[in-house]
Protein backbone atom coordinates (compact mmCIF):
# COMPACT_ATOMS: atom_id res chain seq x y z
CA UNK A 1 0.00 0.00 0.00
CA UNK A 2 1.76 3.17 -1.16
CA UNK A 3 0.37 5.41 1.56
CA UNK A 4 1.94 3.37 4.31
CA UNK A 5 5.47 4.81 4.08
CA UNK A 6 4.08 8.33 3.69
CA UNK A 7 1.97 7.99 6.79
CA UNK A 8 4.80 6.51 8.82
CA UNK A 9 7.15 9.32 7.91
CA UNK A 10 4.75 11.90 9.24
CA UNK A 11 4.99 11.53 13.00
CA UNK A 12 8.76 11.69 12.61
CA UNK A 13 8.51 15.15 11.05
CA UNK A 14 6.04 16.71 13.45
CA UNK A 15 4.88 15.66 16.84
CA UNK A 16 1.14 15.49 16.31
CA UNK A 17 -1.16 15.20 19.32
CA UNK A 18 -2.96 12.25 17.81
CA UNK A 19 -3.25 8.63 18.74
CA UNK A 20 -1.38 5.89 16.95
CA UNK A 21 -2.95 5.14 13.60
CA UNK A 22 -5.27 8.16 13.55
CA UNK A 23 -3.60 10.13 10.79
CA UNK A 24 -2.98 6.95 8.82
CA UNK A 25 -6.64 6.00 9.02
CA UNK A 26 -7.94 9.41 7.90
CA UNK A 27 -5.51 9.36 4.97
CA UNK A 28 -6.82 5.91 4.17
CA UNK A 29 -10.47 6.98 4.28
CA UNK A 30 -9.69 10.06 2.16
CA UNK A 31 -7.99 7.96 -0.49
CA UNK A 32 -10.51 5.16 -0.36
CA UNK A 33 -13.48 7.48 -0.84
CA UNK A 34 -11.90 9.73 -3.46
CA UNK A 35 -10.24 7.01 -5.51
CA UNK A 36 -13.41 4.90 -5.56
CA UNK A 37 -15.56 7.89 -6.46
CA UNK A 38 -13.17 9.05 -9.20
CA UNK A 39 -12.88 5.53 -10.64
CA UNK A 40 -16.65 5.24 -10.85
CA UNK A 41 -16.90 8.77 -12.26
CA UNK A 42 -14.31 7.95 -14.90
CA UNK A 43 -16.13 4.78 -15.92
CA UNK A 44 -19.30 6.84 -16.20
CA UNK A 45 -17.80 9.94 -17.83
CA UNK A 46 -15.53 8.54 -20.51
CA UNK A 47 -18.27 6.78 -22.51
CA UNK A 48 -20.27 10.01 -22.46
CA UNK A 49 -17.25 12.01 -23.59
CA UNK A 50 -16.57 9.48 -26.40
CA UNK A 51 -20.13 9.50 -27.63
CA UNK A 52 -20.19 13.28 -27.59
CA UNK A 53 -16.75 13.53 -29.16
CA UNK A 54 -17.45 11.18 -32.05
CA UNK A 55 -21.07 11.82 -32.90
CA UNK A 56 -23.32 14.75 -33.52
CA UNK A 57 -26.84 14.89 -32.23
CA UNK A 58 -29.52 17.42 -31.53
CA UNK A 59 -29.12 19.13 -28.21
CA UNK A 60 -25.43 18.38 -27.93
CA UNK A 61 -24.66 21.98 -27.03
CA UNK A 62 -27.29 21.82 -24.34
CA UNK A 63 -25.79 18.67 -22.80
CA UNK A 64 -22.41 20.40 -22.92
CA UNK A 65 -23.64 23.39 -21.03
CA UNK A 66 -25.32 21.16 -18.44
CA UNK A 67 -21.98 19.43 -17.87
CA UNK A 68 -20.15 22.73 -17.64
CA UNK A 69 -22.67 23.99 -15.13
CA UNK A 70 -22.10 20.82 -13.11
CA UNK A 71 -18.48 21.80 -12.65
CA UNK A 72 -19.67 24.70 -10.54
CA UNK A 73 -22.01 22.79 -8.21
CA UNK A 74 -21.27 23.91 -4.65
CA UNK A 75 -20.25 20.80 -2.73
CA UNK A 76 -22.47 21.72 0.22
CA UNK A 77 -25.52 21.66 -2.02
CA UNK A 78 -24.50 18.28 -3.44
CA UNK A 79 -24.07 17.09 0.16
CA UNK A 80 -27.55 18.26 1.06
CA UNK A 81 -29.07 16.55 -1.96
CA UNK A 82 -27.27 13.28 -1.20
CA UNK A 83 -28.25 13.63 2.47
CA UNK A 84 -31.85 13.99 1.41
CA UNK A 85 -31.50 10.88 -0.76
CA UNK A 86 -29.83 8.60 1.78
CA UNK A 87 -31.51 9.90 4.92
CA UNK A 88 -33.92 7.50 6.56
CA UNK A 89 -36.81 9.57 5.18
CA UNK A 90 -35.33 9.77 1.69
CA UNK A 91 -35.76 7.51 -1.35
CA UNK A 92 -32.66 5.43 -0.49
CA UNK A 93 -33.36 5.52 3.24
CA UNK A 94 -33.95 1.78 3.58
CA UNK A 95 -30.34 1.10 2.56
CA UNK A 96 -29.07 2.86 5.70
CA UNK A 97 -26.26 4.65 3.94
CA UNK A 98 -26.27 7.79 6.07
CA UNK A 99 -22.93 8.39 7.83
CA UNK A 100 -21.11 5.75 5.76
CA UNK A 101 -18.27 5.94 3.27
CA UNK A 102 -20.70 4.74 0.58
CA UNK A 103 -22.73 7.93 1.01
CA UNK A 104 -19.53 9.96 0.79
CA UNK A 105 -18.59 8.14 -2.43
CA UNK A 106 -22.00 9.01 -3.85
CA UNK A 107 -21.59 12.71 -3.22
CA UNK A 108 -18.04 12.77 -4.54
CA UNK A 109 -19.18 10.86 -7.61
CA UNK A 110 -21.66 13.63 -8.31
CA UNK A 111 -18.95 16.24 -7.77
CA UNK A 112 -16.21 14.56 -9.80
CA UNK A 113 -18.24 13.51 -12.84
CA UNK A 114 -18.77 16.94 -14.49
CA UNK A 115 -15.09 18.00 -14.55
CA UNK A 116 -13.97 14.56 -15.77
CA UNK A 117 -16.56 14.55 -18.54
CA UNK A 118 -15.91 18.14 -19.62
CA UNK A 119 -12.11 17.93 -19.64
CA UNK A 120 -11.99 14.55 -21.43
CA UNK A 121 -14.47 15.82 -24.00
CA UNK A 122 -12.25 18.82 -24.62
CA UNK A 123 -9.24 16.50 -24.95
CA UNK A 124 -11.00 14.24 -27.45
CA UNK A 125 -12.39 17.04 -29.60
CA UNK A 126 -9.00 18.73 -29.38
CA UNK A 127 -7.26 15.94 -31.29
CA UNK A 128 -6.55 17.49 -34.67
CA UNK A 129 -8.66 16.47 -37.63
CA UNK A 130 -5.42 15.70 -39.48
CA UNK A 131 -4.80 12.80 -37.15
CA UNK A 132 -8.31 11.47 -37.69
CA UNK A 133 -8.04 11.87 -41.44
CA UNK A 134 -4.62 10.18 -41.54
CA UNK A 135 -5.93 7.21 -39.60
CA UNK A 136 -8.90 7.02 -41.91
CA UNK A 137 -6.82 7.27 -45.07
CA UNK A 138 -4.48 4.55 -43.86
CA UNK A 139 -7.44 2.21 -44.02
CA UNK A 140 -8.55 2.40 -40.40
CA UNK A 141 -12.04 1.42 -39.46
CA UNK A 142 -14.15 3.67 -37.29
CA UNK A 143 -12.86 1.77 -34.26
CA UNK A 144 -9.23 2.21 -35.34
CA UNK A 145 -9.75 5.93 -35.76
CA UNK A 146 -11.30 6.08 -32.31
CA UNK A 147 -8.36 4.21 -30.79
CA UNK A 148 -5.88 6.58 -32.40
CA UNK A 149 -7.79 9.57 -31.10
CA UNK A 150 -7.92 8.11 -27.60
CA UNK A 151 -4.18 7.46 -27.69
CA UNK A 152 -3.54 11.04 -28.74
CA UNK A 153 -5.92 12.37 -26.11
CA UNK A 154 -4.62 10.28 -23.22
CA UNK A 155 -2.80 13.18 -21.54
CA UNK A 156 -5.94 15.24 -21.63
CA UNK A 157 -7.92 12.34 -20.22
CA UNK A 158 -5.35 11.88 -17.44
CA UNK A 159 -5.70 15.57 -16.67
CA UNK A 160 -9.46 15.09 -16.54
CA UNK A 161 -9.16 12.27 -14.04
CA UNK A 162 -6.75 14.33 -11.94
CA UNK A 163 -9.11 17.29 -12.03
CA UNK A 164 -11.88 15.04 -10.75
CA UNK A 165 -9.62 13.58 -8.09
CA UNK A 166 -8.50 17.04 -7.01
CA UNK A 167 -12.09 18.14 -6.64
CA UNK A 168 -13.05 15.00 -4.71
CA UNK A 169 -10.21 14.81 -2.23
CA UNK A 170 -10.12 18.51 -1.38
CA UNK A 171 -13.85 18.79 -0.88
CA UNK A 172 -15.17 19.26 2.65
CA UNK A 173 -18.79 20.40 2.52
CA UNK A 174 -20.56 17.29 1.31
CA UNK A 175 -18.49 14.60 3.05
CA UNK A 176 -19.01 16.38 6.35
CA UNK A 177 -22.77 16.40 5.90
CA UNK A 178 -23.29 12.87 4.61
CA UNK A 179 -20.34 11.22 6.37
CA UNK A 180 -20.70 12.75 9.82
CA UNK A 181 -16.93 12.99 10.45
CA UNK A 182 -16.93 9.84 12.58
CA UNK A 183 -13.93 8.34 14.31
CA UNK A 184 -14.20 5.24 16.49
CA UNK A 185 -13.31 5.63 20.14
CA UNK A 186 -10.07 3.76 19.46
CA UNK A 187 -9.04 6.64 17.23
CA UNK A 188 -9.51 4.95 13.86
CA UNK A 189 -11.41 6.92 11.26
CA UNK A 190 -14.70 5.63 9.95
CA UNK A 191 -15.89 8.56 7.87
CA UNK A 192 -13.36 11.25 8.75
CA UNK A 193 -11.26 12.46 5.86
CA UNK A 194 -8.30 14.80 5.84
CA UNK A 195 -10.54 17.72 4.96
CA UNK A 196 -13.10 17.08 7.69
CA UNK A 197 -10.27 16.47 10.17
CA UNK A 198 -8.87 19.88 9.23
CA UNK A 199 -12.31 21.38 9.72
CA UNK A 200 -12.57 19.77 13.16
CA UNK A 201 -9.16 21.07 14.23
CA UNK A 202 -10.05 24.55 12.99
CA UNK A 203 -13.37 24.41 14.87
CA UNK A 204 -11.41 23.77 18.06
CA UNK A 205 -8.99 26.55 17.30
CA UNK A 206 -6.08 24.10 16.85
CA UNK A 207 -4.80 25.94 13.81
CA UNK A 208 -1.30 24.43 14.00
CA UNK A 209 -2.43 20.84 13.69
CA UNK A 210 -4.97 21.93 11.06
CA UNK A 211 -2.10 23.38 9.02
CA UNK A 212 -0.06 20.20 9.36
CA UNK A 213 -2.99 18.10 8.17
CA UNK A 214 -3.40 20.57 5.30
CA UNK A 215 0.22 19.99 4.34
CA UNK A 216 -0.42 16.23 4.40
CA UNK A 217 -3.36 16.73 2.05
CA UNK A 218 -1.27 18.79 -0.38
CA UNK A 219 1.52 16.21 -0.27
CA UNK A 220 -0.99 13.46 -0.96
CA UNK A 221 -2.45 15.25 -3.99
CA UNK A 222 1.06 15.96 -5.29
CA UNK A 223 1.99 12.30 -4.92
CA UNK A 224 -1.08 11.11 -6.77
CA UNK A 225 -0.46 13.63 -9.56
CA UNK A 226 3.16 12.54 -9.86
CA UNK A 227 2.14 8.87 -10.08
CA UNK A 228 -0.42 9.55 -12.80
CA UNK A 229 2.00 11.70 -14.83
CA UNK A 230 4.65 9.02 -14.46
CA UNK A 231 2.27 6.38 -15.76
CA UNK A 232 1.56 8.62 -18.73
CA UNK A 233 5.27 8.95 -19.52
CA UNK A 234 5.81 5.22 -19.39
CA UNK A 235 3.04 4.88 -21.90
CA UNK A 236 5.01 7.09 -24.30
CA UNK A 237 8.14 5.00 -24.09
CA UNK A 238 6.43 1.77 -25.11
Amino acid at each position, binding site marked *: *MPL*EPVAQLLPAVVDLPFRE*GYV*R*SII*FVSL*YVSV*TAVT*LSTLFSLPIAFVMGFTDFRGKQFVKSVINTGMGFPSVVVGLVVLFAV*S*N*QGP*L*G*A*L*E*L*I*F*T*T*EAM*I*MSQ*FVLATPPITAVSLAAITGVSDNVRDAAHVLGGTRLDVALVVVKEARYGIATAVLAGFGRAISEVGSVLIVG*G*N*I*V*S*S*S*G*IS*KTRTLTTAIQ*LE*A*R*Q*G*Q*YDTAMVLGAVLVALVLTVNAIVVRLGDEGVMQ
Partner: protein
Amino acid sequence: MSIQRRQFIAAIGGGALAGIAGCSGTGGQAQSDNGSSAGVAGETLTLTTTTSTYDTGLLDAIHPDFEEMYGVTVDAVAQGTGAALESARNGDSDVVMVHARGLEDEFMRNGYGINRRDLMFNDFVIVGPESDPAGVQGMSSATEALTTIAEAEATFVSRGDNSGTHTKELNLWDAAGTDPGGDWYQETGTGMGEALNIANQQGAYTLSDRGTYISQRSEIDLVILVQGPIEGGPEILANPYGIMAVNPGVHDNANYDLAMAYIGWITSPGAQDAISNYQMNGEQLFFPEAVSENPDFQQYVPEGWSSDSGDE
Protein backbone atom coordinates in the same frame (compact mmCIF):
# COMPACT_ATOMS: atom_id res chain seq x y z
CA MET B 1 -1.89 -2.37 9.49
CA SER B 2 -3.31 -5.85 9.07
CA ILE B 3 -6.57 -4.80 10.68
CA GLN B 4 -6.81 -1.87 8.33
CA ARG B 5 -6.14 -4.11 5.38
CA ARG B 6 -8.94 -6.39 6.43
CA GLN B 7 -11.23 -3.41 6.76
CA PHE B 8 -10.01 -2.26 3.38
CA ILE B 9 -10.88 -5.56 1.77
CA ALA B 10 -14.24 -5.63 3.49
CA ALA B 11 -14.84 -2.05 2.46
CA ILE B 12 -13.77 -2.67 -1.14
CA GLY B 13 -16.04 -5.67 -1.29
CA GLY B 14 -18.86 -3.68 0.18
CA GLY B 15 -18.13 -0.65 -1.94
CA ALA B 16 -17.89 -2.66 -5.13
CA LEU B 17 -21.23 -4.30 -4.45
CA ALA B 18 -22.85 -1.14 -3.34
CA GLY B 19 -21.30 1.00 -6.02
CA ILE B 20 -23.42 3.95 -6.80
CA ALA B 21 -26.69 2.49 -7.94
CA GLY B 22 -27.56 -0.76 -6.21
CA CYS B 23 -26.30 -0.07 -2.74
CA SER B 24 -27.12 -2.51 0.00
CA GLY B 25 -26.67 -1.95 3.71
CA THR B 26 -23.03 -2.90 4.03
CA GLY B 27 -22.32 -0.60 6.92
CA GLY B 28 -23.17 -3.17 9.56
CA GLN B 29 -21.34 -6.10 8.01
CA ALA B 30 -17.99 -4.40 8.03
CA GLN B 31 -17.94 -4.56 11.78
CA SER B 32 -19.37 -8.01 12.19
CA ASP B 33 -16.09 -9.86 12.78
CA ASN B 34 -16.32 -9.32 16.48
CA GLY B 35 -15.50 -12.10 18.90
CA SER B 36 -18.14 -11.24 21.48
CA SER B 37 -21.25 -13.33 21.72
CA ALA B 38 -23.71 -10.77 23.10
CA GLY B 39 -26.91 -10.55 21.08
CA VAL B 40 -26.16 -7.01 19.98
CA ALA B 41 -22.51 -7.70 19.16
CA GLY B 42 -21.35 -6.08 15.97
CA GLU B 43 -24.16 -3.56 15.88
CA THR B 44 -23.55 0.14 15.53
CA LEU B 45 -25.16 2.82 17.65
CA THR B 46 -25.36 6.24 16.04
CA LEU B 47 -25.23 9.05 18.57
CA THR B 48 -25.76 12.61 17.40
CA THR B 49 -24.47 15.08 19.90
CA THR B 50 -23.14 18.57 20.39
CA THR B 51 -19.71 19.85 19.59
CA SER B 52 -19.04 20.56 23.28
CA THR B 53 -19.28 16.94 24.42
CA TYR B 54 -17.29 15.74 21.45
CA ASP B 55 -14.59 18.37 21.10
CA THR B 56 -13.65 18.19 24.78
CA GLY B 57 -12.73 14.52 24.20
CA LEU B 58 -15.19 13.24 26.81
CA LEU B 59 -16.94 10.74 24.55
CA ASP B 60 -13.71 9.25 23.23
CA ALA B 61 -12.59 8.79 26.81
CA ILE B 62 -15.67 6.99 28.12
CA HIS B 63 -17.00 5.09 25.08
CA PRO B 64 -14.45 2.22 25.04
CA ASP B 65 -16.03 0.90 28.25
CA PHE B 66 -19.49 0.68 26.66
CA GLU B 67 -18.17 -0.72 23.41
CA GLU B 68 -16.30 -3.44 25.24
CA MET B 69 -19.24 -4.31 27.45
CA TYR B 70 -21.60 -4.94 24.52
CA GLY B 71 -19.19 -5.63 21.68
CA VAL B 72 -20.63 -2.76 19.67
CA THR B 73 -19.44 0.39 17.96
CA VAL B 74 -20.63 3.87 18.83
CA ASP B 75 -20.59 6.32 15.95
CA ALA B 76 -20.56 9.74 17.56
CA VAL B 77 -21.54 12.53 15.17
CA ALA B 78 -20.78 16.01 16.52
CA GLN B 79 -23.26 18.43 15.00
CA GLY B 80 -24.49 21.00 17.46
CA THR B 81 -27.78 20.66 19.30
CA GLY B 82 -30.08 21.90 16.52
CA ALA B 83 -28.56 19.68 13.84
CA ALA B 84 -28.24 16.70 16.20
CA LEU B 85 -31.97 16.84 16.93
CA GLU B 86 -32.76 17.32 13.24
CA SER B 87 -30.77 14.20 12.32
CA ALA B 88 -32.67 12.26 14.96
CA ARG B 89 -35.96 13.71 13.70
CA ASN B 90 -35.11 12.31 10.26
CA GLY B 91 -34.39 8.91 11.80
CA ASP B 92 -30.70 9.11 11.07
CA SER B 93 -29.55 8.51 14.63
CA ASP B 94 -30.54 6.25 17.50
CA VAL B 95 -29.82 8.40 20.52
CA VAL B 96 -29.21 12.12 21.09
CA MET B 97 -27.15 13.90 23.73
CA VAL B 98 -27.77 17.64 23.69
CA HIS B 99 -27.98 20.70 25.89
CA ALA B 100 -30.98 22.89 25.16
CA ARG B 101 -33.94 21.93 27.28
CA GLY B 102 -36.40 23.95 25.22
CA LEU B 103 -35.45 22.17 22.01
CA GLU B 104 -35.39 18.79 23.79
CA ASP B 105 -38.88 19.38 25.12
CA GLU B 106 -40.17 20.26 21.67
CA PHE B 107 -38.51 17.11 20.33
CA MET B 108 -40.29 15.02 22.97
CA ARG B 109 -43.64 16.73 22.53
CA ASN B 110 -43.49 15.99 18.81
CA GLY B 111 -43.05 12.32 19.63
CA TYR B 112 -39.54 11.86 18.29
CA GLY B 113 -37.73 11.36 21.57
CA ILE B 114 -38.52 9.12 24.51
CA ASN B 115 -36.99 8.05 27.81
CA ARG B 116 -35.21 11.31 28.49
CA ARG B 117 -32.76 11.45 31.37
CA ASP B 118 -30.80 14.27 32.93
CA LEU B 119 -27.21 13.31 32.27
CA MET B 120 -24.73 15.85 33.52
CA PHE B 121 -24.16 19.56 33.66
CA ASN B 122 -21.56 22.21 33.51
CA ASP B 123 -22.11 25.90 33.08
CA PHE B 124 -21.75 28.80 30.73
CA VAL B 125 -19.41 31.67 31.35
CA ILE B 126 -19.19 35.11 29.78
CA VAL B 127 -15.64 35.58 28.57
CA GLY B 128 -13.95 38.63 27.15
CA PRO B 129 -10.66 40.48 26.86
CA GLU B 130 -8.76 41.19 30.04
CA SER B 131 -9.10 44.93 29.43
CA ASP B 132 -12.89 44.49 29.75
CA PRO B 133 -13.96 47.63 27.81
CA ALA B 134 -17.60 47.37 28.87
CA GLY B 135 -16.72 46.77 32.52
CA VAL B 136 -18.70 43.62 33.28
CA GLN B 137 -16.07 41.89 35.40
CA GLY B 138 -17.47 40.23 38.48
CA MET B 139 -21.10 41.08 37.81
CA SER B 140 -23.36 38.64 39.57
CA SER B 141 -26.12 38.92 36.99
CA ALA B 142 -25.60 37.55 33.49
CA THR B 143 -28.44 39.59 32.05
CA GLU B 144 -27.07 42.77 33.56
CA ALA B 145 -23.69 41.98 32.05
CA LEU B 146 -25.21 41.50 28.60
CA THR B 147 -27.20 44.71 28.88
CA THR B 148 -23.99 46.54 29.83
CA ILE B 149 -22.17 45.07 26.83
CA ALA B 150 -25.03 46.09 24.56
CA GLU B 151 -25.12 49.62 25.95
CA ALA B 152 -21.38 50.00 25.54
CA GLU B 153 -21.72 48.48 22.04
CA ALA B 154 -18.66 46.38 22.83
CA THR B 155 -18.08 43.66 20.24
CA PHE B 156 -19.93 40.45 21.06
CA VAL B 157 -19.44 37.24 19.10
CA SER B 158 -22.52 35.04 18.79
CA ARG B 159 -22.43 31.42 17.66
CA GLY B 160 -25.41 32.04 15.40
CA ASP B 161 -25.74 28.33 14.59
CA ASN B 162 -28.82 27.12 16.47
CA SER B 163 -26.60 25.18 18.85
CA GLY B 164 -27.32 24.70 22.53
CA THR B 165 -24.99 27.56 23.40
CA HIS B 166 -26.62 29.83 20.83
CA THR B 167 -30.05 28.95 22.17
CA LYS B 168 -28.89 29.79 25.69
CA GLU B 169 -27.44 33.09 24.48
CA LEU B 170 -30.71 34.08 22.81
CA ASN B 171 -32.61 33.15 25.98
CA LEU B 172 -30.26 35.37 27.97
CA TRP B 173 -30.78 38.35 25.65
CA ASP B 174 -34.48 37.72 25.94
CA ALA B 175 -34.30 37.65 29.72
CA ALA B 176 -32.23 40.83 29.64
CA GLY B 177 -34.92 42.50 27.58
CA THR B 178 -32.36 43.54 24.99
CA ASP B 179 -32.58 42.88 21.29
CA PRO B 180 -28.98 42.60 20.14
CA GLY B 181 -28.13 44.04 16.75
CA GLY B 182 -25.73 46.38 15.07
CA ASP B 183 -22.09 46.28 14.07
CA TRP B 184 -20.95 45.20 17.52
CA TYR B 185 -23.03 42.01 17.44
CA GLN B 186 -21.43 39.42 15.18
CA GLU B 187 -23.05 36.12 14.29
CA THR B 188 -20.32 33.75 13.19
CA GLY B 189 -22.16 30.48 12.46
CA THR B 190 -19.22 28.46 13.76
CA GLY B 191 -18.43 25.98 16.50
CA MET B 192 -17.50 27.11 20.00
CA GLY B 193 -13.75 26.76 19.44
CA GLU B 194 -13.81 28.94 16.35
CA ALA B 195 -16.11 31.45 18.02
CA LEU B 196 -13.65 31.71 20.93
CA ASN B 197 -10.83 32.29 18.47
CA ILE B 198 -12.75 34.98 16.62
CA ALA B 199 -13.59 36.68 19.91
CA ASN B 200 -9.96 36.38 20.92
CA GLN B 201 -8.71 38.03 17.77
CA GLN B 202 -11.23 40.84 17.93
CA GLY B 203 -10.99 41.45 21.64
CA ALA B 204 -14.68 40.63 21.85
CA TYR B 205 -17.03 39.15 24.43
CA THR B 206 -18.76 35.84 23.95
CA LEU B 207 -20.76 33.22 25.79
CA SER B 208 -18.97 29.89 26.09
CA ASP B 209 -19.59 26.60 27.81
CA ARG B 210 -16.97 26.17 30.49
CA GLY B 211 -15.66 22.88 29.05
CA THR B 212 -14.70 24.28 25.66
CA TYR B 213 -13.26 27.39 27.26
CA ILE B 214 -11.05 25.34 29.60
CA SER B 215 -9.89 23.10 26.77
CA GLN B 216 -8.80 26.17 24.81
CA ARG B 217 -7.73 28.55 27.52
CA SER B 218 -4.02 27.97 26.99
CA GLU B 219 -4.24 29.27 23.42
CA ILE B 220 -6.33 32.38 23.89
CA ASP B 221 -6.16 35.57 25.95
CA LEU B 222 -9.83 35.71 26.93
CA VAL B 223 -10.68 35.57 30.62
CA ILE B 224 -13.86 34.65 32.48
CA LEU B 225 -15.67 37.85 33.41
CA VAL B 226 -18.97 36.47 34.61
CA GLN B 227 -18.87 33.07 36.29
CA GLY B 228 -21.47 30.35 35.97
CA PRO B 229 -23.16 28.55 38.86
CA ILE B 230 -20.30 26.05 39.32
CA GLU B 231 -18.12 28.90 40.58
CA GLY B 232 -20.94 30.65 42.40
CA GLY B 233 -22.37 32.57 39.44
CA PRO B 234 -26.06 33.02 38.58
CA GLU B 235 -28.19 29.91 38.10
CA ILE B 236 -29.35 31.17 34.71
CA LEU B 237 -25.95 30.18 33.28
CA ALA B 238 -26.42 26.48 34.13
CA ASN B 239 -25.77 24.13 31.23
CA PRO B 240 -27.56 20.80 31.70
CA TYR B 241 -27.11 17.96 29.23
CA GLY B 242 -29.88 15.51 28.52
CA ILE B 243 -30.00 12.20 26.71
CA MET B 244 -32.92 10.66 24.84
CA ALA B 245 -33.65 7.62 22.70
CA VAL B 246 -35.25 8.06 19.29
CA ASN B 247 -38.81 6.80 19.36
CA PRO B 248 -38.94 3.44 17.52
CA GLY B 249 -42.66 4.01 17.06
CA VAL B 250 -41.83 6.89 14.73
CA HIS B 251 -38.67 5.48 13.16
CA ASP B 252 -38.80 1.70 13.18
CA ASN B 253 -35.22 1.42 11.99
CA ALA B 254 -33.89 3.13 15.11
CA ASN B 255 -31.72 0.81 17.16
CA TYR B 256 -33.86 1.25 20.24
CA ASP B 257 -32.50 -1.71 22.25
CA LEU B 258 -28.97 -0.49 21.96
CA ALA B 259 -29.97 3.13 22.52
CA MET B 260 -31.59 2.14 25.82
CA ALA B 261 -28.55 0.04 26.72
CA TYR B 262 -26.43 3.13 26.10
CA ILE B 263 -28.69 5.37 28.17
CA GLY B 264 -28.67 2.75 30.93
CA TRP B 265 -24.92 2.55 30.82
CA ILE B 266 -24.19 6.28 30.72
CA THR B 267 -26.56 7.02 33.61
CA SER B 268 -25.09 4.18 35.70
CA PRO B 269 -22.84 4.94 38.66
CA GLY B 270 -19.76 3.59 36.85
CA ALA B 271 -20.07 5.77 33.75
CA GLN B 272 -21.16 8.74 35.85
CA ASP B 273 -17.95 8.37 37.86
CA ALA B 274 -15.98 8.25 34.63
CA ILE B 275 -17.64 11.52 33.55
CA SER B 276 -16.82 13.17 36.82
CA ASN B 277 -13.21 11.92 36.67
CA TYR B 278 -12.67 13.26 33.17
CA GLN B 279 -10.36 16.23 33.36
CA MET B 280 -8.71 18.60 31.00
CA ASN B 281 -5.83 20.82 32.05
CA GLY B 282 -6.41 19.56 35.58
CA GLU B 283 -10.03 20.71 35.73
CA GLN B 284 -13.23 18.74 35.84
CA LEU B 285 -15.36 19.59 32.79
CA PHE B 286 -18.67 17.84 33.43
CA PHE B 287 -20.63 17.16 36.60
CA PRO B 288 -22.80 14.04 36.51
CA GLU B 289 -26.37 14.30 37.79
CA ALA B 290 -28.07 11.08 36.71
CA VAL B 291 -27.46 9.13 39.91
CA SER B 292 -29.55 10.48 42.72
CA GLU B 293 -31.24 9.15 45.80
CA ASN B 294 -34.23 11.41 45.35
CA PRO B 295 -36.64 11.09 42.46
CA ASP B 296 -36.71 13.81 39.83
CA PHE B 297 -39.72 13.14 37.66
CA GLN B 298 -39.27 16.28 35.60
CA GLN B 299 -36.30 14.76 33.82
CA TYR B 300 -38.57 12.29 32.01
CA VAL B 301 -41.07 14.79 30.64
CA PRO B 302 -41.05 18.22 29.00
CA GLU B 303 -40.24 20.84 31.59
CA GLY B 304 -43.26 21.84 33.62
CA TRP B 305 -45.40 19.02 32.26
CA SER B 306 -47.86 17.52 34.65
CA SER B 307 -50.57 14.96 34.10
CA ASP B 308 -52.86 17.06 36.29
CA SER B 309 -52.58 20.14 34.12
CA GLY B 310 -53.94 18.26 31.10
CA ASP B 311 -51.06 19.64 29.09
CA GLU B 312 -50.81 17.86 25.78
